């Protein structure tokens, strides 16, 4: 028997050896493969320092129109904590007509500012005075800006990376106590824990008993796979051991803190404690208190099961359990734990947290930066990007678009598909983009309509036609044009017969009325006289990326561009005929704080300022007696200028216009370009108005340029009148040499005295 076995062994020995060898080789290859995979993952993340993107800081200054409540809201948005006295960074105290605060240290592009104690007094909803801790007056002060996201290579922009220095020491300690008490000593897996888990698993016949170390959890998170098969667990364990072989504990802990999932909002995963801190508490991780850290540690186990917004009792119970554990393990004192346990969850409300994620705006930032930087610079070099986003304006733009689209959808005949929309808000004088909304799902980083939806602009083209007419010097606001039927021969040989919106014909009308009522026939006749080529050139000068085709229908908006380009054109008009390139980024700094690139203000005069002034005045009349009149009830005394736009068959509904310091473009329509039921006035205007009414803006208010004077005419016919002969008079701005025919019966009362006095005055001041 024995010899037979020996013979068999002898006979098959090489085979056995070969099999064992192959197995060993396979295992080695497997381990080497795993090793390469896990190291790539880890190093990829570890050395990745994504560009941090900041919103524009709130500038405080003496005399500023800002109420004490508005400042308090701004501070709360930044996560400043209201307290009984100001002693800590990021705290503020409200007193009667005064706020004291301790600002956070912050490195601006042009100044590395230490934390500072600042007192701000208010009078009549203005900042009266500001002073520092040694009672020195501070005329102007910047608050630290809101961090709005990071540019991350693969996962989208939804992560805020924190360094070890930015992590409160309590967090790793708490994580160890709650999740992995042997973290400091184990080799990536915890054999004692595993044996216990296997025992439990075998008895229950399933593999769901968790005994994962932090390292294993990290590995699992890297590969986004929660299938708990035995082979999966084995792979995970081997990878965890490999990670421990290559890297230090502190790096693994830091990676864990930046990696782990702590929540979900729609399609957006809240990864890492840095983002979770903003998401749940609206402030940086470094400023979290004990009870807040305990809640974040609660979410590690299951962000869904312990969702503090949906399951507050459950989350609170586990949070307090964790606080007990921390006391038990002497991480905190029992007294501190008791105090923390008595505190509420302290969550920032979901909409405020939600509003810190602006994918459409970040998309624009990213495209701007891609012109100068490699993708790897943006995601690895630790750049700091100062953007122009105004969080308050962005929030108003988002809520106005979403709520109005919801309302309009109820009146829509299509039930299969939702209306879509886009908003761009800019600051006319410097071209800074304050807000971008790319669609009604504002936190979804998909199709960015503000930048990419090329749509027909309809009557938004008219101001460019009228500006070109004014620039010729042959026309003014009171000039008469004929709103009469017109048929034009197109290049294709076909006839083109445009019609007015209401299919009516109005005959001779002044320019100001033709624009206010958006008369198509008058505009086509005007554009034929002014010259299509000139108008097309003006479109390009004012800011379109390409010169539109100089075809007759161009005057009525046969120009297909995305809302952002419309915003550029209207920004130039709002800025008095000076084009300044729209920009979303002010400066880019390297990780050491050195300015790598600044995007300085550039202006180019592209239109005659006096002509633009006259146009602006005509666009004010659009809001007062034309297609924008319905905005008045909401805007009250605020003076704004604007223009509606509706493309053929109501496929696009636009409204664009400006106040003293904001220019807003709103588009809405269907993605499949099917007709909506809305004109510019009934669809986009209510959204536009809601944004304008909801932001802190000022009236349109330009001083009358030299060479231009005001004249009274009748809106209907453009004839000069005065108060004593007409009850229908309106004021227009016209060049000093303009001759406006008088209405019958008015000439007698004509103030030739005034005309002469004006000439005399001109002589006086040397013109």
């Amino acid at each position, binding site marked *: 028997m024995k010899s037979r076995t020996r013979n068999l062994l002898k006979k098959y020995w090489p085979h056995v050896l070969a099999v064992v060898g192959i197995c060993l080789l396979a295992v080695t290859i497997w381990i080497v493969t795993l090793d390469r995979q896990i190291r790539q993952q880890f190093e990829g993340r570890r050395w990745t320092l994504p560009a941090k993107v900041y919103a524009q800081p709130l500038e405080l*200054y*003496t*005399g*500023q129109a800002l109420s004490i409540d508005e400042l308090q809201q701004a501070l709360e948005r930044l996560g400043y904590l209201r307290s009984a006295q100001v002693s800590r960074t990021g705290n503020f105290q409200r007193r009667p007509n005064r706020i004291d605060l301790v600002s956070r240290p912050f490195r601006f*592009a*042009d100044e590395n500012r230490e934390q500072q104690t600042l007192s701000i007094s208010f009078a009549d909803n203005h900042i009266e005075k500001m002073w520092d801790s040694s009672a020195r007056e501070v*005329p*102007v002060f910047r608050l630290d800006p809101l961090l709005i996201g990071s540019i991350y290579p693969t996962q989208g922009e939804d992560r805020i990376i924190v360094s070890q220095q930015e992590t409160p020491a309590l967090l790793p300690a708490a994580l160890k106590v709650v999740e992995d008490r042997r973290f400091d000593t184990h080799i990536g897996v915890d054999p004692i824990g595993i044996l216990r888990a296997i025992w439990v698993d075998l008895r229950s016949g399933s593999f769901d008993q968790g005994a994962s170390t932090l390292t294993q959890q990290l590995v699992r998170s890297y590969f986004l796979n929660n299938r708990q098969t035995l082979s999966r667990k084995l792979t995970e364990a081997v990878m965890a051991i490999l990670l421990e072989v290559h890297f230090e504990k502190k790096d693994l802990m830091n990676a864990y803190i930046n990696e782990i999932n702590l929540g979900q909002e729609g399609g957006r995963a809240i990864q890492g404690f840095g983002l979770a801190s903003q998401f749940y508490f609206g402030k940086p991780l470094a400023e979290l208190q004990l009870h807040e850290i305990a809640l974040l540690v609660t979410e590690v186990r299951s962000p869904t099961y312990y969702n503090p917004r949906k399951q507050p009792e459950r989350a609170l119970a586990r949070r307090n359990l964790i606080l007990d554990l921390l006391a038990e393990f002497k991480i905190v004192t029992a007294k501190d734990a008791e105090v923390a346990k008595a505190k509420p969850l302290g969550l920032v409300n979901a909409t405020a947290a939600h509003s810190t994620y602006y994918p459409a705006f970040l998309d624009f930032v990213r495209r701007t930066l891609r012109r100068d930087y490699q993708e790897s610079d943006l995601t690895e070099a630790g750049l700091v990007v100062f953007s122009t986003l105004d969080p308050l304006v962005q929030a108003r733009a988002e809520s106005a678009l979403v709520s109005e689209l919801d309302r309009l959808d109820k009146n829509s005949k299509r039930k299969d598909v939702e209306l879509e929309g886009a908003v761009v808000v800019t*600051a*006319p*004088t*410097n071209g800074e983009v304050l807000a971008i909304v790319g669609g009604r799902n504002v936190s979804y980083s998909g199709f960015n309509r503000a930048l990419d939806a090329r749509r027909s602009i309809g009557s938004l083209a008219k101001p460019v036609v009228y500006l070109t007419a004014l620039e010729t010097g042959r026309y003014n606001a009171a000039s008469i044009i004929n709103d009469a039927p017109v048929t034009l021969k197109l290049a294709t040989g076909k006839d083109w017969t445009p019609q007015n919106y209401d299919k009516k014909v109005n005959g001779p009308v002044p320019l100001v009325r033709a624009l206010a009522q958006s008369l198509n026939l008058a505009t086509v006749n005007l554009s034929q006289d002014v010259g299509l080529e000139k108008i097309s050139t003006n479109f390009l000068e004012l800011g379109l990326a390409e010169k539109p085709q100089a075809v007759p229908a161009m005057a009525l908006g046969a120009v297909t561009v995305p809302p952002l380009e419309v915003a550029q054109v209207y920004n130039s008009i709002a800025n*008095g*005929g*000076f084009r300044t390139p729209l920009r979303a980024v*002010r*400066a880019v700094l390297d990780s050491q704080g050195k300015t790598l690139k*600044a995007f*300085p*203000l*550039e*202006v*180019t*005069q592209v239109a005659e*300022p006096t002509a633009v002034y006259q146009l602006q005045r005509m666009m004010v*009349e659009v809001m*007062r007696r034309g297609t924008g009149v319905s905005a008045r009830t909401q805007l009250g005394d605020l*003076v704004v200028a604007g223009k509606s736009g509706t493309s053929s068959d109501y496929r696009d509904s636009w409204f664009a216009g400006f106040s003293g310091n904001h220019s807003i473009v709103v588009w809405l329509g269907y993605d499949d370009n099917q007709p909506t039921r809305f004109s510019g006035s009934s669809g986009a205007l209510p959204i536009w108005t809601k944004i304008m009414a909801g932001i802190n803006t*000022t009236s349109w*208010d330009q*001083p*009358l*340029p*030299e060479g231009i*004077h*005001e*004249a009274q005419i009748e809106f209907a016919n453009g004839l000069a009148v*005065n*108060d*004593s002969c*007409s*009850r229908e*008079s*309106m*004021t227009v*701005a016209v060049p*000093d040499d303009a001759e406006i025919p008088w209405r019958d019966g008015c000439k007698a*009362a004509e*103030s030739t*005295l*005034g*005309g002469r*006095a*004006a000439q*005399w*005055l*001109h002589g*006086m*001041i*040397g013109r």
Partner: protein
Amino acid sequence: MNACPNFYRVTSLALLLSLCACSSIPPYSPAPIVTPPAHSTAVVEPAAPVTETHPVEPVVAVEPSVPLPTTTPATRNYTLSAATRTLVNQATTQRKNLDFVQAAATLERALRIEPKNPLLWLEYGELRMDENNFAQAESMARKALASASGDARTQASAWRLIADSYKARNQNSEAQQAYGRANSLTDR
């Protein structure tokens, strides 16, 4: 500024202005659609922080029988607010240290606070001159000019900057013209 020969002019200007009842015409804001009262006696205060000065006090207040057309812009004298002055000073220091990028950033802060103040646009234009960016210097000066309605002194400074930028680009005849505009404004 040779004020003496202009005494007659100034006095008659004062009379005229007082005749207008409203010695400075406020920046345009549309009248209500309802026909406004024939004449207003209120002097509308300018929006802070631009300060508006009335060069001469009305001597006699005579109500005009016929409203005069508003043919001239208000006479103004632009100044900086406490906040923007602080920032302009800071930018000047940065400019002296040849730190143009930071100086520009500081002036942009000031412009965000007072976007319509021509003095700030002039500062920005001077900075661009220092950087030999003559085209932008001219643009900034033109922007200042467009915002400086009624302020002859600021307009003169703007024309001078435009002239300097032309001169730097060897556009001498344009430069001469611009200097001429500047001088005619200062001579008033």
